[in-house]
């Protein structure tokens, strides 16, 4: 019984981290209607950047985010301006191919620099743990959870309590109308892409401190994140949160009562069932004619 409680608690804690990683993806989709396949490798890039800062400059993982997040923000901003804005037609597909091309280049570079060995981020709170009831919980899970809550809360405030957020939501609802009332949608898109990639930096740190990773982990990561955002409804932040927490809880419970091998398969099967009943996901909107 206590194993199941353990599974649920770690599921909720790591679920928030997945929500953080998925929030960037779903935000970019909501505003720009494009799927950033590169999000997986950008998360791994964020993790490697934190690794460099920690290994060579001895900067604490969480403090390091103050450096890695702005860095990845600019990278995202540049990617949008240089590679995604020039796409004129067939945006849906071409943007997927472009972001995939970017992912391949980054993966190649990371493989070249860091080799394919698995690494994990280190800090005192990664190895230390404290007891709750019958089991021990590593500090890092709680810290990552708090980080995810703070950043997701910040994102919520930015989107729903600021002028910039109103422009973003207007662009999410209708690009053309937003342009007509004087919103600079192109600028909003570039900044949103930057924010989405900056969130990948934070997500990468949180992922790298709880999992061993190499550049190849990005495939597993992006498949899970895509599953999360279709489960929750594409473009919906709260949907992403619900989906990632339920994904991790279901996986952990399956791992405890059945077998770890089947853990992620069960979630994917649930995803297929949900899609058969509700093609737009839990909180997504029905896609109709293009505007």
């Amino acid at each position, binding site marked *: 019984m206590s194993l199941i409680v353990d599974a649920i608690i770690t599921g909720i804690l790591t679920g928030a981290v997945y929500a953080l990683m998925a929030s960037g993806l779903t935000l970019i989709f909501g505003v720009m209607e494009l799927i950033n396949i590169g999000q997986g490798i950008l998360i791994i890039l964020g993790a490697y950047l934190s690794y460099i800062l920690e290994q060579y400059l001895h900067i604490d993982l969480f403090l390091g985010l103050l450096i890695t997040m702005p860095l990845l923000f600019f990278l995202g901003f540049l990617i949008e301006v240089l590679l995604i804005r020039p*796409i004129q037609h067939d945006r849906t597909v071409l943007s997927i191919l472009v972001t995939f091309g970017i992912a391949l280049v980054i993966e190649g570079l990371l493989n070249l620099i860091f080799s394919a060995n698995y690494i994990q981020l280190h800090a005192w709170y990664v190895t230390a743990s404290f007891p709750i009831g019958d089991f021990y919980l590593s500090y890092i899970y709680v810290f990552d959870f708090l980080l995810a809550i703070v950043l997701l809360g910040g994102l919520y405030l930015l989107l729903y309590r600021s002028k910039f957020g109103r422009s973003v939501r207007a662009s999410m609802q209708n690009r053309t109308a937003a342009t007509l009332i004087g919103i600079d949608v192109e600028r909003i898109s570039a900044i949103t892409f930057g924010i989405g990639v900056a969130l990948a930096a934070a997500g990468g740190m949180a992922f790298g401190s709880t999992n061993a990773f190499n550049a190849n982990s990005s495939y597993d990561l992006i498949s899970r994140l895509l599953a999360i955002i279709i489960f929750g409804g*594409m473009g919906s932040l709260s949907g992403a949160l619900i989906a990632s927490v339920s994904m991790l809880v279901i996986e952990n419970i399956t791992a405890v009562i059945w077998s770890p091998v089947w853990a992620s398969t069960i979630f994917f099967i649930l995803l297929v069932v949900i899609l058969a009943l509700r093609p737009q996901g839990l909180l997504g909107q029905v896609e109709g004619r293009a505007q």
Partner: protein
Amino acid sequence: MKITKIASLLLLLAIALAFPLLFPNPAVTGIAVFTLLFAMATTGWNIFSGYSGYIALGQGGYFGLGAYALALLCQGWNVPGGYLPFCLVPLAGLAAALVAIPLGWIALRARRHTFVVITIALFFILQLLAYNLTGLTRGSTGLSLPIPADWSGDFFNIPFYYVTLLALLITIGISWWIRNSKYGLGLLAIRDDEDRASGLGVRTGPFKLSAYIISAFIIGMTGALWAYFVEAIYPATAFDPLFDVAIALMAFLGGLGSLTGPLLGALILEPAQQYFPLQFSQNSYYLIIYGALFLIVILLMPRGIIPTFQVHWRIYQTGNETGGRSPHSVITTSLTKDHKNNMKKSDSA
């Protein structure tokens, strides 16, 4: 015009038939077999995604299914290596098509972006199953196929070359037939405006699903041929996310939705894809170069080679024909020409 076209097609066929005789080096014929396989997969992919405009990025799942189906059939029936496994290839394609029925039904309930993401997710589900159904697939240990013992080193590639060429020709025939039929016209209407197409009486649901299944069948057969060629399959190689994007890129490079575009794309990209890893021992350089090539192609030629070329050709042709006629006839000829071209976009290529 028609005679030159037929003559050039026959010439191309003759070159394709004579290729292994002209270049008997096994390394070259090996690359040729991979190129034909990819040309077949890309043409099959184009039948659904190119004509209907629904971009499926998970068709690699059916490639893997076809590969595993052939391996399991050969194992279950104790098929010896030789020409017999080739006869089972259509069965393997059928297995992939059967799985495509429910999966296609689920995926096609969504549109545009959501459809793309769902196909990617379905692909990863199939890959996970290949890893986890250890009783059937033996997990990451992989499966091996019967080895044709009496085919010597130099001869080994030859049967694969001709069987794949035959399968490719049949695929092109199917694609050509669909392109020129009422069915294909319905698919193109779905690509241009799905709601209007359904308003005009195109039964969009069955049209899309059947094209999806045909494409899965062809890609499944490609997977089966590939599996027999490489002789040992693993979840990571049979269900390869790079395959999904590679065929999409090939179709895009040549020209999505045209008959010859995907072929041309595969003929250009696959030899490069086979050649690069041979040149660069380290996989990372290959990834960087491939990714960069990818970005350049998409940003410089978003429409693909064949459509870009066709636009120029059309302008050139109308320019030639209009010489010395009255302005009125100029307008009508160019109008009817345009109309014709709209009706069967680019099938003349």
